[in-house]
């Protein structure tokens, strides 16, 4: 056996786990055809009905856990399964067949449900094909309950779960145990396992391809959720190295605890507001617990599910939930930023989606979508802590047009006597070079700016950072980017409107000093970075930050900028390599 074999996957949830592997293989129930004696028939039907009830109660438990951990949207799949268990037509048909054919329930269920699974699989629609998996899962659950085996979902000691793939139900159930980590052959960043592992703060690596082939139950495994690797049966020195790393990280995190709930004020008294970027309402708690003073970016795309945009009422409930939780802090709600590489693939194709129909362009072309979202956002603003923001603005015309729709949405609500915040703050994302260069003019039309650095960099440098071939030249510290940011901040300051930044750059410790120095009022970052960002701000002087950022603007290349920052910030930014 090769000691310390390393396999690479996708880092799905950060953290490091060292532990014994538990290989989880899904039991496929064995189904034999068995003839029944006349007197066995009623007992068999009884068994079948009890299995349905037991399956329902299992799924209700899973549903509760899932709602708790994923929110009602993420739990939808279990609701659908429960609904299917209520299918009286099929239940009656199965009972009738058990009676008529005098065969065991498992066999009849398998035979009857398989037909439907086949129909579904033959669909051209991916969504419906996926539902075939749900039905298959459900069928196996009922059969297992007839055979009265228990699926393995509890185990005694701490384990790293290794599986080909985990269904949402598996992941939810496992999470009740002492799971140290998840490692799966399949899946990506947005797979159920990945999303759930992050929510549960359990390290996970997915997309490992050959994890189940290379690992046996009982193997010692190191799972590195930062790098996205697994080390199988590592040498002792590697184990020790990782144990030290775990200690260092824990120590660092303990230190950061002290910075969570203190305001981010520089030594010389400049206050910067630290906000959180969130994607789901469920993340609000984590954000507040990490010390966020509000939500600087609430993405709303998550709400578009299975091809449908929910009605205004449902949207309102989602947005209001967040607004209420964040209160008295504010939440900046961004309208749908769909398009590009994200959505519409099925029927809307573009050669160049990032330069295509996305963000506010879609909203303006489909006013019914925009208006219902605006009404929902307005309704959620009754406590006066909601701001609304538009993505992908590239000209002042769009800003003006969008404002007309806000007025229209307000009028529509007034006609129905529905309350909202009449003075809701309206802002735009500055994420295209054109909007950055027109920042002075746009600033006069809106109440605030939020700089989206990811897209701003991508569009300014003409680099798709998802494209490995060119990802290297995606440079956060490119002088052109820094100059644009500086110009946007200055324009906002002249117009006396607040300006924040909500791209990943805001969470880069080196960039923090630079951004504070430029004069940004707010930084909006992923929740887990909040204590670290606060710590840095509390360590510096605004005076120095201003000097550093001014100086940084004179360099001609990213390397020059970086070298300069590294020298200046030595001792302020800890050398922690994770």
């Amino acid at each position, binding site marked *: 056996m090769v000691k310390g074999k390393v396999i690479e996957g996708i880092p799905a949830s950060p953290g490091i786990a060292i532990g014994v592997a538990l290989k989880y293989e899904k039991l496929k129930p064995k189904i034999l055809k068995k003839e029944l004696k006349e007197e066995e028939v009623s007992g068999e039907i009884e068994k079948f009905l009890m299995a349905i009830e037991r399956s329902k109660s299992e799924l209700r438990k899973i549903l509760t856990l899932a709602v708790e951990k994923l929110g009602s949207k993420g739990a939808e799949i279990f609701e659908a399964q429960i609904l299917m268990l209520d299918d009286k037509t099929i239940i009656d048909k199965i009972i009738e067949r058990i009676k008529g054919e005098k065969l065991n329930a498992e066999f009849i269920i398998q035979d009857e449900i398989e037909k439907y699974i086949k129909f579904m699989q033959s669909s051209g629609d991916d969504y419906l094909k996926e539902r075939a998996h749900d039905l298959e899962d459900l069928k196996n659950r009922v059969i297992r309950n007839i055979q009265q085996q228990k699926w393995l979902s509890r185990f005694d000691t701490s384990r790293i779960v290794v599986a080909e793939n985990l269904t949402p139900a598996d992941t939810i159930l496992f999470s009740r145990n002492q799971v140290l980590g998840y490692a799966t052959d399949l899946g990506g960043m947005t797979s159920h396992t990945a999303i759930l592992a992050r929510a549960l703060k359990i390290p996970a690596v997915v997309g490992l391809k050959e994890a189940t082939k290379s690992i046996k139950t009982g193997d010692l495994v190191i799972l590195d959720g930062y790098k996205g690797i697994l080390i199988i049966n590592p040498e002792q020195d590697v184990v020790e190295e990782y144990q030290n790393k775990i200690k260092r990280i824990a120590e660092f995190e303990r230190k950061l605890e002290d910075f969570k709930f203190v305001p981010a004020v520089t030594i010389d008294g400049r206050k910067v507001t630290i906000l959180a970027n969130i994607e789901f309402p469920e993340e609000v708690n984590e954000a507040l617990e990490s010390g966020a003073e509000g939500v600087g970016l609430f993405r709303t795309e998550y709400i578009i599910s299975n091809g449908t945009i929910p009605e205004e009422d449902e949207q309102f409930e989602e947005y209001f939930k967040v607004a209420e939780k964040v209160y008295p802090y504010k939440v900046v709600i961004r309208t749908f930023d769909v398009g590009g590489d994200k959505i519409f693939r099925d029927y809307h194709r573009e050669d160049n989606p990032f330069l295509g129909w996305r963000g506010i362009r879609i909203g303006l072309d489909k006013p019914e979508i925009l208006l219902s979202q605006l009404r929902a956002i307005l309704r959620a603003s009754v406590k006066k802590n909601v701001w609304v923001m538009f993505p992908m603005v590239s000209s002042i015309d769009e800003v003006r047009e969008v404002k007309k729709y806000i007025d229209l949405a307000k009028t529509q609500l007034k006609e129905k006597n529905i309350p909202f915040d009449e003075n809701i703050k309206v802002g735009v994302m500055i994420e295209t070079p054109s909007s950055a260069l027109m920042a002075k003019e746009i600033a006069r039309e809106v109440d605030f700016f939020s700089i989206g650095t*990811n897209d*701003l960099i991508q569009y300014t440098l003409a680099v798709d950072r998802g494209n490995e071939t060119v990802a290297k030249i995606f440079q956060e510290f490119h002088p052109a980017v820094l100059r644009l940011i500086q110009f946007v901040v200055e324009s906002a300051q002249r117009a006396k409107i607040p300006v924040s930044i909500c791209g990943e750059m805001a969470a880069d410790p080196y960039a923090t000093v630079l951004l504070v120095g430029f004069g940004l009022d707010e930084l909006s970052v992923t929740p887990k970075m909040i204590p670290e960002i606060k710590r840095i701000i509390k360590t510096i002087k605004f005076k120095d930050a201003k000097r550093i950022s001014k100086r940084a603007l004179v360099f001609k290349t990213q390397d020059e900028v970086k070298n300069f920052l590294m020298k200046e910030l030595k001792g302020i930014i800890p050398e922690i390599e994770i």
Partner: protein
Amino acid sequence: MIKKEVEIKNRTGLHTRPAAMLVKLASKFKSDFFIEKNGVEINGKSIIGVMSLAAEQGSRLILRFEGEDEEEAAEAIVALFESGFGELEGLKNEENKNGQGQSY
């Protein structure tokens, strides 16, 4: 017996929510209700059946009603199809494949 032909108007087809709405409505009537698509007929009061039809937008279905309240049933159910199951003009969602699909 009444036969009606309908077309699926809502973009997402007969997925979970519309299927549940349809079955719930159909179950209120005493009449039998069947749906046929491409020569396959299923019981319209069965959610598994309805979902397995995998009826996408634009699919044409033949609805068959039989029983004492078949007229009312046909009227109500055809109206539900006509309304596109109350769905807003939806957008087709696809999980982002490269994972890092958030934009700022």
